[in-house]
């Protein structure tokens, strides 16, 4: 019996500006396409940032761009799927840069597995979450959204990913129609759990572990605070 080694390099990046994270992903996607690097997972948070997907559904932004600036938030247009969303501190983000062709996953199976990753994390804290119904990709607790997904697949390599609400300032979501869904609330792990949450760092690690297990990696290489300058060589 031959056991295939499936390696994942995990980068824990702390709080990273959106554009820098985007540039990093673009470089990693190119390197992954050419086989220079193995599957890579970025674990991070963003400062207050609103992003739009490829369809540029800017009608779901309820305030002007200058009002956003005065709130201290940035707005970015991206090539990912999905509608408008908010990212901010205390929200766990994962950007997997992986080869779907290596595991024979299509977009649908990939996204379903990402949903499962967040559902499992929620269940570790006693929260019963579920995947959205058709057209409402994401992770829900009842009718409240706790995790969002928006990905891009280029030559079978993924970028962008998921955002799981640990305890972000949910009032930021009031300035958008989140994910284009008007009548549903946004929630967080903090809101759904009766007791105190453990340290956020632990929750980030748990999210990573759920991802590693569900995607079948058996070799994890940790890279903490990698110098982003290394990536320019």
């Amino acid at each position: 019996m031959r056991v295939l080694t499936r390696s994942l390099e995990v980068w824990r990046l702390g709080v990273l500006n959106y554009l820098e994270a985007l540039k990093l992903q673009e470089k990693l996607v190119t390197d992954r396409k050419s086989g220079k690097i193995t599957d890579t997972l970025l674990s991070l948070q963003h400062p207050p940032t609103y992003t739009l997907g490829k369809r540029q559904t800017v009608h779901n932004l309820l305030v002007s761009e200058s009002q956003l600036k005065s709130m201290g938030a940035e707005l970015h247009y991206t090539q990912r799927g999905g509608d408008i969303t908010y990212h901010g501190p205390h929200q766990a983000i994962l950007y997997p840069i992986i080869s779907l062709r290596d595991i024979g996953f299509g977009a649908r199976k990939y996204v379903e597995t990402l949903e499962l990753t967040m559902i499992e994390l929620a269940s570790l804290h006693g929260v019963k979450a579920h995947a959205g119904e058709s057209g409402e990709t994401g992770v829900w607790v009842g009718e409240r959204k706790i995790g969002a997904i928006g990905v891009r697949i280029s030559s079978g390599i993924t970028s962008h990913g998921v955002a799981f609400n640990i305890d972000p300032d949910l009032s930021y979501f009031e300035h958008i129609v989140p994910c284009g869904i008007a009548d549903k609330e946004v929630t967080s792990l903090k809101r759904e759990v009766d007791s105190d949450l453990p340290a956020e760092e632990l929750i980030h690690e748990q999210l990573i572990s759920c991802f590693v297990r569900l995607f079948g990696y058996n070799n994890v290489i940790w890279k903490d605070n990698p110098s982003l300058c290394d990536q320019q060589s």
Partner: protein
Amino acid sequence: MATKLWASKAASYLRISVFHRGFATVVKDLKYADSHEWVKVDGNSATVGITDHAQDHLGDVVYVELPEVGKEVKQGDSFGAVESVKATSDVYSPVSGKVVDVNEKLGDSPGLVNGSPYEDGWIMKVEISNKDELNSLLDSEQYTKHCEAEDQKH
């Protein structure tokens, strides 16, 4: 069992082959890229779309980014994208040439890609600049084997 028999009879009448494993259809007489696009060649004109296998693995398509008419495309280069389940997936041109028509119906009805991937869900028409490149594409049998190999990975 009866359904499979019917499917096989219908398939041979329509000149399509059905592989019973996943029920994704592959049409004979088309050429295929291993990135799951199909091309129907008629003289120097090519119609391009994505395969049944591709649409099945993508999920419900909600948006198709069409190329501009007049754009030059190259075999193997991305010519647009398809969005489904919050994922945008690039699509690659199986031929080189100039885009002469795009399927505007996909604007209002992106689901045509799912419901009719080889007919009403066509994406673009290209005036081919290099017919020799067609030789590097897969025929229906080779494409079927390619899909089977990919799907066995998980």
